[in-house]
């Protein structure tokens, strides 16, 4: 039987549980929608694993998931930028993402992973994250970063997609580096990035809950 308790799926499931506990009563629809996104992530990971366990091509699963990944990331950043009245880059990025996705689907079909789209999405998210930090620093208002859900959410995304971009670019070479007889270095990096991403997100959800309860007091 296929082992579904991989590092990635476990940390994603933990993050989903945290999101349900911390965000279910959040007043922001965008933050609440992250519960749905994490649920889709867990389903996609399990489906991908199941399909690959049946010795079938599972790229189509991740191609579908890529739409959700891009959609939710843009939605979240649009929400974060709205506070600074700076939404223009999101529209440009979204158009670039959709155009690349459509191009790749027409180019090589649905059963090969849209690697270019994913790389472009990763770069866009890195740029959005840096831009968000720039706006945060430029803003006159002081925010205690220790308790800022937005800061930690973006921090997680920056870590994951920054590292991911490097790994994607050097994928062929990194894959050939073995740590043990069965363990590839690239897999270890992806696992570590996943753990960092979802740990940051879990903490950001906890911050959101703290801030909500604190403001109510």
């Amino acid at each position, binding site marked *: 039987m296929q082992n579904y308790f991989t590092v990635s799926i476990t940390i994603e499931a933990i993050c989903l549980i945290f999101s349900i506990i911390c965000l279910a009563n959040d007043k922001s629809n965008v933050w609440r929608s992250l519960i749905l996104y994490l649920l889709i992530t867990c389903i996609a990971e399990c489906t991908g694993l199941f399909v690959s366990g049946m010795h079938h091509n599972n790229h189509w699963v991740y191609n579908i998931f890529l739409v959700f990944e891009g959609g939710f990331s843009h939605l979240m950043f649009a929400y974060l930028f709205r506070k600074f009245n700076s939404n223009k880059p999101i529209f440009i990025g979204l158009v670039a993402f959709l155009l690349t996705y459509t191009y790749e689907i027409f180019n090589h079909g649905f059963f090969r992973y849209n690697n270019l789209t994913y790389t472009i999405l990763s770069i866009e998210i890195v740029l959005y994250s840096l831009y968000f930090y720039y706006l945060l620093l430029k803003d006159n208002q002081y925010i205690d970063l220790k308790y800022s859900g937005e800061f930690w959410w973006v921090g997680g995304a920056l870590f994951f997609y920054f590292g991911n971009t490097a790994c994607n670019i*050097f994928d062929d070479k990194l894959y050939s580096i073995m740590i043990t007889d069965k363990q590839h270095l690239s897999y270890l990096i992806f696992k570590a990035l996943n753990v960092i991403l979802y740990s940051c997100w879990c903490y950001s959800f906890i911050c959101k809950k703290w801030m909500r309860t604190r403001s109510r007091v």
Partner: protein
Amino acid sequence: MDANEIKSLILIITLIFLIAPASIILYVAIYNRRKKRHIEEKEQMKSAFDTELIKTQLEIQEQTMQTIGADLHDNIGQLLSLTSLTLNSVDVDNKDKAQQKIDAAIDLTLRSIKEMRLLGKLLQGDQLMAQGLPEAIKHEVNWLEKSGQYIITYICGTEIPENNNPNKDLILFRILQEVLNNIIKHARATKINIKLAYPEKAISLQIDDNGIGFDIDMPTGQKGMGLQNISKRVAIVGGEVSITSQQGQGTVILIFIPYP
């Protein structure tokens, strides 16, 4: 470059890519802490400025009350006592003399009324500032001239800007009062020149007298609180003060403040 070297290079680049976000986040956190300190400092400065402003307002009020008290005692009180004495000494049987004394009493009463009117204007200190700094200075000059001990020249130079800063006006007015107090108490001057000007994005006030002057190099403690207060207040509004004096040759005080 062999395969192992390429692998090492890629490994290093990947590590850099992984470390870079951590550095960025660390930088944001450090910058944010600095921003917090800067905001706190700004708040402290604002609080110090507000406290100084309230103190200045209170001092202006106190000065007004002192002037009124002194004027009531020394001037109006004397006039009314004299009026009373004159009226008491009226002999109704001696009509000619009685008429003279009554006329004198009327004259004294009219002078008392005039003095009272001037005092009334002084009491409306806040309204005086509302008319603008040049008017307030003019009023202060008129009051001092009334004593007859000083020849005062007051020049309000260039055009007054449309946007004024009431807080800075108030502080500058209080500084002027303090300088004039110093002149009255210590300078033994006979001439005072006051010049108010509005150069570009600034305000300047120059006060000079022909008094005995003082040694500018004497220790701070001996210069008295007045001069220290002037320097402190000018610094609070981001301005500069220059004091030039020599014993026997009068004093020149020049204040320059960014405005409005």
